[in-house]
């Protein structure tokens, strides 16, 4: 893919070459940077939201619920993996559209229809649908692996239930929570279906730009440039997440040895 970024297209024909023109064209185009910012913020917002939304559920299932309820919960979380994401996205369209179920209900109470698709809100709903099951599962695993004695120790030392979540549960499950958020960023950043089906394609994200480059003029090399930029971004984000997870501990143990 990296090699292809240096090829050229002549008369709708791919030709091996060593040209920086694709890089220059793409990196100097404002619309690419707009799309980049849009993809990055959308995926970032989605991973923050999904982390916050999934936590209460994972907390309940992982630490409060009986083993039986936890098993049923885990099965329900896995159920969406068995349906196509495209189907789930179109289901949201019928629910969130101007003539959708939600706007119909709002209409009964005399509200104007609210636009919930073909905008950022729609994209975010799509991203959340895509990453929620995975994030729930990862958080559930890391929360149920917490040594409950740590939580009891917190209570024993005068720490009430809510502070115990903040001071003990979240730090103890930090690895899983950050990893899940990083995964959801990766998935949402590259997702095509959410911005297309629920986000309305316009303004575009990077994944939509890739499709456009290929469809409108067979610009495989330019699409490859965008893809390489995306991969580099993901590597940076995942590395940052890893440093956040493990870096703190390493620093602490080094300090301990000195």
């Amino acid at each position, binding site marked *: 893919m990296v090699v292809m970024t240096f090829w050229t297209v002549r008369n709708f024909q791919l030709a091996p070459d060593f040209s920086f023109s694709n890089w220059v064209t793409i990196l100097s185009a404002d619309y690419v940077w707009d799309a980049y910012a849009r993809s990055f913020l959308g995926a970032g917002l989605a991973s923050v939201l999904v982390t916050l939304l999934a936590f209460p559920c994972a907390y309940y299932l992982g630490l409060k619920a009986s083993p039986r309820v936890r098993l049923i919960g885990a099965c329900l979380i896995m159920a969406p993996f068995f349906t196509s994401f495209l189907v789930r996205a179109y289901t949201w369209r019928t629910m969130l559209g101007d003539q959708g179920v939600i706007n119909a209900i709002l209409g009964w109470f005399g509200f104007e229809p609210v636009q919930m698709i073909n905008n950022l809100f729609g994209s975010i709903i799509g991203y959340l649908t895509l990453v929620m099951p995975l994030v729930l599962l990862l958080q559930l695993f890391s929360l149920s692996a917490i040594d409950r004695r740590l939580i009891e120790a917190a209570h024993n030392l005068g720490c009430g239930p809510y502070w*115990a979540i903040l001071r003990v549960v979240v730090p103890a499950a930090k690895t899983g929570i950050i990893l899940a958020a990083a995964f959801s960023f990766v998935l949402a950043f590259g997702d095509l279906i959410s911005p297309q089906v629920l986000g309305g394609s316009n303004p575009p994200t990077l994944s939509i730009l890739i499709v456009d480059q290929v469809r409108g003029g067979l610009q495989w090399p330019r699409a490859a440039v965008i893809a390489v930029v995306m991969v580099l971004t993901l590597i940076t984000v995942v590395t940052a997440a890893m440093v956040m997870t493990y870096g703190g501990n390493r620093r602490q*143990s080094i300090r301990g040895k000195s």
Partner: protein
Amino acid sequence: MTDIAILGDETTPLLEFRNVEKRFGGSIVAVKDLNLKIGRGDFVAIMGPSGCGKTTTLRMLAGLEEPTSGTLLYNGLPVNDLPAWKRQMPLVWQSYALFPFMSVLDNVAFGMRSRKMPKAERNKRAQAWLDRLGIGEMAARSPSTLSGGQAQRVALARALVLEPEVLLLDEPLSALDAHMVVRMQSELAELQRSLGITFIYVTHNQSEAFAMANRVVIMNEGELQQVGHPMDVYRAPRTRFVAEFVGANNIVDGEIVKVGEAAYVVDTPIGKLTSSNPSGLEAQTGQRVHLVVSADMVHVGADHSDESANLIDARLVGESFVGNVVTLVFETNGNYELKVQLQQRALSDLDLNINDTATLAFGHDDALLIPSS
């Protein structure tokens, strides 16, 4: 908390269990009808085999388990419904339960943070306790880099820095090396004396309990067996379970055949034995009893003319050494085993070999009667 403390007076026990029962899942009884008073400044050891309910008892004190029925009183007031985080009864865990994602100092300061103490003040106090326990230089470390003994001290500091009235300890020494255990035992006993607070210490290890506690509570299958000074419990067990649990006891079943002025004659498989120590038992002729003799109260090589002692001929079948104490196992005519504990030096004076026969003797006063269960 302070308003509760004012209400208490000298006659009110610090802690009291009143008919406390704890069941798990409706049918499993962990603690049965527990009645127990714990005074200020006591070093109480709650002992028993695993599953006897001792840890559940401790967890009820900490508020980590709620009694199914009965009342738990703290300074005379019921605290059944008081959540764990509002009780000031820090617990030292068997596994230490240190927070792995915090430095040692932050671990120790954790409880004060919950009480909204300013950071500088709580760090100062935490450091002072770490220094006092000799691990001041570990403050910046992660708990995962500590040895068992060090982690133990951090757990102690984390609890004691809160200046509690009661410290709960759940088998805190069970994960340590033997030499560390002995050291920590004397340190804990010293700490308890100098602080003057109540220690409630759960253990399955009798020697640990007897080395430190001034009051032992023995439990079995959720039931309280005996409460008392360690030496009294050791010398005068009240049930067969306690007699077995405190160890090194000979227990012979028998029937009282004669009640005399100061002595009872008991017919046992190893002959008629006399006891002048009924330990509160109102013994009657015909009653089934256990006759208990401490192994270290039995003498080897007695003179047959001694009228004040019970005499039994037996054959030496085995011996085991722990330190300089020897436990000899004898077999009597009726194939009954009797244990005798001696200092090693006393044994070499006896010149006794396996399969030799000797006369064993124990005083009437050393033969304890307990009711047959």
